[in-house]
């Protein structure tokens, strides 16, 4: 079966998210991904991009964040790379989701959702870039 590829890039600002959503909808359409999966991928990518936009840069300059998709049979691989400060999301502690409302911390769910939705999440630092690889078996 043919391996499919798609490359997207967005600038490091939150205002880019609606355009990103539109691009992901188009990709889901082209690759015939089911709506539930498409929504979850949108969520995972929003969480990853939001983290980069909010925390990776302190220079106030525009930066491009690259998102590469590869679909090989039933394996979907998404690689997100940015040239921000080193940050390994796989090192972040999961929130305790068994706590009561009073004790539950507000926040910290973004990376947790990425890890729960995707089957494999790995990070590497290469050529001064953060490279986050997300794998989902369809």
């Amino acid at each position, binding site marked *: 079966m043919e391996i499919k590829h798609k490359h997207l890039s967005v600038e490091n600002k939150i205002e880019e998210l609606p355009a990103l959503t539109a691009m992901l909808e188009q990709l889901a359409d082209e690759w015939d991904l089911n709506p539930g999966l498409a*929504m979850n991928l949108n969520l995972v990518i929003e969480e990853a991009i939001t983290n980069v936009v909010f925390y990776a840069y302190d220079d106030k300059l525009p930066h491009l964040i690259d998102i590469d998709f590869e679909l090989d049979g039933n394996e979907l691989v998404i690689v997100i790379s940015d040239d921000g400060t080193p940050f390994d999301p796989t090192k972040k502690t999961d929130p305790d989701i068994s*706590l009561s409302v009073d004790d539950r911390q507000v926040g910290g769910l973004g990376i947790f*959702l990425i890890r729960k939705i995707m089957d494999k999440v790995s990070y590497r630092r290469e050529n001064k870039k953060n490279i986050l690889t997300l794998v989902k078996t369809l």
Partner: protein
Amino acid sequence: MDIKNEKVGDFVVVRIDGRIDTTNYTEFEKIIAEVIDGGEKNLVLDCKNLNYISSSGLRVFLITQKRLMGAGGKLHLCTMQPSIKEIFDISGFSTIFKIYDSEAEALSN
């Protein structure tokens, strides 16, 4: 995102239409805060037309739950789409919110 409020008995029903994400969660948070600041303690969030939520939106749900519980009020969610319910399940939110299948149930509990 489009939000409409309606007073029904002891509750204010907040009907959410569309997406709650990082671009608009502050707007959602503001609308909810205005309802509570107006003296309402019992809210139903009608999620029938909520078709996307990210951690930013989940955060507002949690803050609202904390606030209403602290005030002795109620926060009931209803008619949630399966894909959104899945995100609530993953986040551990299904156990800290009361989620009803119908608006009638949400209003009568």
